[in-house]
């Protein structure tokens, strides 16, 4: 564990160096990058050791606060998450250095670097905490630091509003977590996870209160529908590397919390598993539908995070159901799929956000319909974005396919099991629907933003961004490909983590798991075969075309001789058939006039449910205003009346003398 804390200390030191040395930008930036990178590597060493088969490590620190000692430890689940947090966090932090470099002088850039370092450290501590108080402290630090980063561009009203909604949402969730640990901890000797796990069998109703509170508290952070309402605004309004950190890492702490909850409680009851499965399906489908309707690139990507959280919850729900119906294979595979998708999503979603940041930096706009033709002007950004898009859609030979495949396995194996669990197999069709909708959405994004020709001047003036931003993106893209082609690297550790959550020891002994391991090798083989066949095909084609006349001309487009940039399909038109087919759910508001047509995507939960009920609450509360007259003696009258009423009550209820 010493390495772990040393790594975190290095990362923090990098942040402080960035602030202290802010007058000398090149030195500060280089030192920050070096320290954060080094710290991530050092901190990841114990995690790798644990995942490679080493035993669990932990350290206990006695503090002068109630709730017992603070225990930090790395078991396979924590180690997996720590690896993801440190790896993707370091890449995003390095990107942020170059991204914010242009804003030095009129924004607190050095402070932002320090906050990013603190965010990564608090994320790692959340994953490593093995005691409730330590967990909550790290959780709160993470939430507040994230808020400060969201409102980085504080002069924009959009950022402030998004930050406020985020703050309200995250503290509501934290409140639920406080209640959760309080109700659980009354029975335990102290608030370390080990003690909590020991009293878990004694919880009333099989821990129903804890499970529901956990779903609310961790669900707000994870962004599952309908608790996702803070997500699009916050992820869109923050600087791109912060969006990457939030979408890729911060929301995963909610998933980590749920997994840890399950691992401490033991197999959850079936109703919870079905609830999580249903919520996952809803989040997945609704998330991608709402994404289809967006015009803003980063908001669209934020809604895709909601969708992918839905996929992760599908895996989590299957894990819970497997545990509830005593089918260990389904349980292990479900949790493994969830954990794997956490990692893969962190990698490709942060890559997408970094790419969006590069696009925004180069063109100055996030509106999809103003862009186009960027593949020629920003080739590296385009290539990495394409890799990430294919990954998020779940196409072979990339990493998204691997984790979705594992989730599918859990769903399909439920179909060959016995009993009510078989109903869950319809979730596979749902997952297929989610995949097809995601394909539609990312075809739209890639096609409209990068392909074709520039629709507005700012897109035509774009230039490729600097190496400081490209290197992290290339690294993440390589990770996508590597995990897709060699999934055995990550499947073993993920299976160990999944087995831990499912409470199943000796997972390699399970027949289904052994089949899955074999199948993973076949997937690797298919990925290689696909790439090889593609290469071969391209060579053949090149060989054939070498001897043929090849010309370059205008797009044929049915013989229309004068194609215009504005004639290209817009993103809204591309998505229109799907959005209209799902119109009641999609929350799209259409404005038509004689000469114009505009669509506005509103978040249904935020606009229709929450803000409306908030408005009603305010008018109701406004009716109470007459009580507040601003006159002192009226308030004193209230005090007198209350005192006398209490005295009378006490007298009436108390013993007579």
């Amino acid at each position, binding site marked *: 564990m010493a390495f772990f804390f040393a790594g975190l200390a290095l990362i923090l030191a990098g942040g402080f160096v960035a602030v202290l040395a802010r007058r000398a930008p090149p030195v500060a930036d280089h030192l920050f990058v070096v320290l954060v990178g080094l710290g991530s590597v050092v901190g990841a060493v114990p995690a790798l050791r644990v995942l490679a088969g080493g035993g669990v490590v932990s350290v206990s620190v006695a503090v002068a606060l109630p709730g017992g000692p603070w225990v930090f430890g790395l078991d396979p689940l924590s180690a997996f998450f720590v690896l993801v947090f440190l790896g993707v966090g370091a890449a995003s932090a390095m990107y942020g250095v170059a991204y914010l470099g242009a804003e030095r002088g009129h924004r607190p850039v050095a402070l932002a670097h320090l906050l990013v370092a603190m965010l990564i450290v608090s994320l790692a501590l959340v994953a490593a905490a093995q005691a409730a108080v330590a967990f909550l402290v790290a959780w709160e630090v993470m939430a507040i630091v994230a808020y400060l980063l969201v409102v980085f561009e504080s002069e924009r009203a959009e950022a402030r509003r998004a930050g406020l909604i985020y703050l309200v949402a995250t503290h509501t969730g934290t409140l639920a977590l406080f209640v959760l640990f309080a109700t659980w901890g009354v029975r335990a000797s102290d608030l370390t996870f080990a003690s909590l796990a020991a009293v878990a069998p004694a919880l009333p109703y099989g821990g129903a209160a804890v499970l529901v509170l956990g779903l609310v508290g961790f669900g707000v952070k994870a962004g599952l529908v309908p608790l996702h309402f803070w997500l699009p605004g916050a992820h869109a309004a923050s600087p791109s590397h912060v969006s990457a950190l939030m979408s890729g890492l911060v929301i995963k702490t909610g998933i980590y919390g749920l997994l840890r909850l399950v691992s401490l409680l033991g197999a959850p009851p079936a109703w919870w598993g079905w609830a999580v499965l249903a919520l996952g399906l809803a989040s997945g489908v609704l998330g991608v539908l709402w994404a289809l309707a967006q015009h803003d690139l980063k908001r669209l990507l934020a809604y895709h995070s909601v969708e992918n959280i839905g996929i992760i919850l599908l895996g989590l729900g299957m894990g819970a159901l497997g545990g509830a119906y005593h089918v260990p294979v389904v349980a292990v595979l479900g949790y493994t799929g969830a954990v794997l998708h956490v990692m893969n999503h962190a990698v490709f979603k942060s890559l997408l956000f970094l790419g969006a940041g590069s696009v925004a930096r180069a063109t100055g706009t996030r509106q999809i319909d103003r862009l186009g033709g960027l593949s020629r002007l920003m080739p590296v950004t385009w290539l990495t974005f394409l890799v990430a898009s*294919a990954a998020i859609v779940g196409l072979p030979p990339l990493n998204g396919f691997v984790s979705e495949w594992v989730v599918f396995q859990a769903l399909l194996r439920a179909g060959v099991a016995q009993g009510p669990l078989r109903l869950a*197999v319809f979730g596979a069709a749902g997952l297929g629907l989610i995949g097809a909708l995601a394909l539609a959405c990312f075809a739209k994004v890639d*096609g409209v933003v990068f392909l074709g020709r520039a629709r507005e001047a700012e897109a035509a003036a774009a230039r490729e961004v600097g190496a400081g931003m490209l290197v992290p993106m290339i690294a993440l893209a390589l990770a996508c490909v590597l995990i897709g082609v060699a999934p055995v690297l990550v499947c073993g550790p993920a299976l160990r983590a999944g087995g831990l959550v499912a409470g199943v020891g000796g997972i390699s002994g399970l027949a289904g798991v052994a089949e899955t391991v074999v*199948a993973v090798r076949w997937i690797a083989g*298919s990925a290689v075969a*696909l790439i090889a066949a593609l290469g071969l*095909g391209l060579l053949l084609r090149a060989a054939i075309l070498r001897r043929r006349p090849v*010309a370059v001309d205008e797009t*044929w487009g049915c013989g229309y001789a004068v194609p215009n940039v504005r004639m290209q399909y817009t993103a809204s038109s591309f998505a229109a058939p799907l959005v209209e087919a799902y119109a009641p759910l999609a929350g799209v508001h259409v404005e038509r006039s004689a000469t114009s047509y505009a669509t506005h995507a509103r978040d249904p939960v935020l606009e229709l449910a929450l803000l409306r009920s908030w408005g009603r609450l305010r008018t109701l509360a406004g009716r109470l205003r007459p009580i507040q007259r601003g006159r002192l003696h009226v308030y004193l009258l209230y005090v007198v009346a209350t005192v006398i009423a209490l005295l009378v009550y006490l007298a009436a209820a108390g013993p007579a003398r």
Partner: protein
Amino acid sequence: MTVSSVATLAAVLSVAPALPGLANRTKSFLTGRRGAPVLQLYSDLAKLARKGAVYSGTTTSVFRVAPVLAVVSTLLAACLLPLDGREPVAGFTGDIVLFAALLALGRFAVVLAALDTGSSFEGMGASREVTFAAFAEPGLFLCLLVLVLATGRLSLGGMLAAPLANAWPTAAPSLVMVGISLFVLMLAETSRVPVDDPATHLELTMIHEVMVLDHSGPDLALILYGGALKLALFGSLVVGVLVPHSALDAPAGGAVLVVGLLGVAAGVGVVESVMARLRLDRVPQFLITASALAGFAAILLLG
């Protein structure tokens, strides 16, 4: 990977271009015309392969890679099916998902190539293609789910071979419904009537055709062959479900498949001459009906 599986695959790959021709010929016959020769597509492919290509200045390498990727992915998907009724060329537990994902990969490539041209026609075709795919994909999964529930196997090689023959007596109604559903999905995926009319020349009514307007020469040959291959692929699925031939030994099994494919192609021709092409906004309902049929079949097996 056995000799017979590879040989059957090779046979299917060679027969594939004949299938659209047979469908068109059947349709022509039923409407009282002579129609084009059954082997017309072979001559078209040969002609296109000899030609040069013209590329749009707007397109990038995506446009050049996409046709190859479409064919390669469909080919690899075909490797997962037990075409001779016994074993596929390659297979593993859970390869159903890889099958669907490879088809999606091909689709993604072609759609991106369409958007690469920067033309409104291709964009329109791409938009329709992904919309109908979003309705067809759950249907495909539901059909595969029914097979999983009926046979208890998780790989295509297991689902469409011997275990399916064993499951027929008990699960016949569901399997017939799945067969019909797969046939409808095949019409959607290969752009036949009633989802799309391959013989139309009005671009605004096209779906798949308009998406590939700009391809020329060998690229167009690859696209056309990929379309025929998809027809063969789905046709093999339909034949595999409706006519389980695992009891036969290898060459007979392959022959049964080829004959079945020809029958499917003829069936497509019959359907095309009997039905009119649906209005575009009715197509989702049509696909949802097919999916619901498969879903109902699944529920029958669960209950």
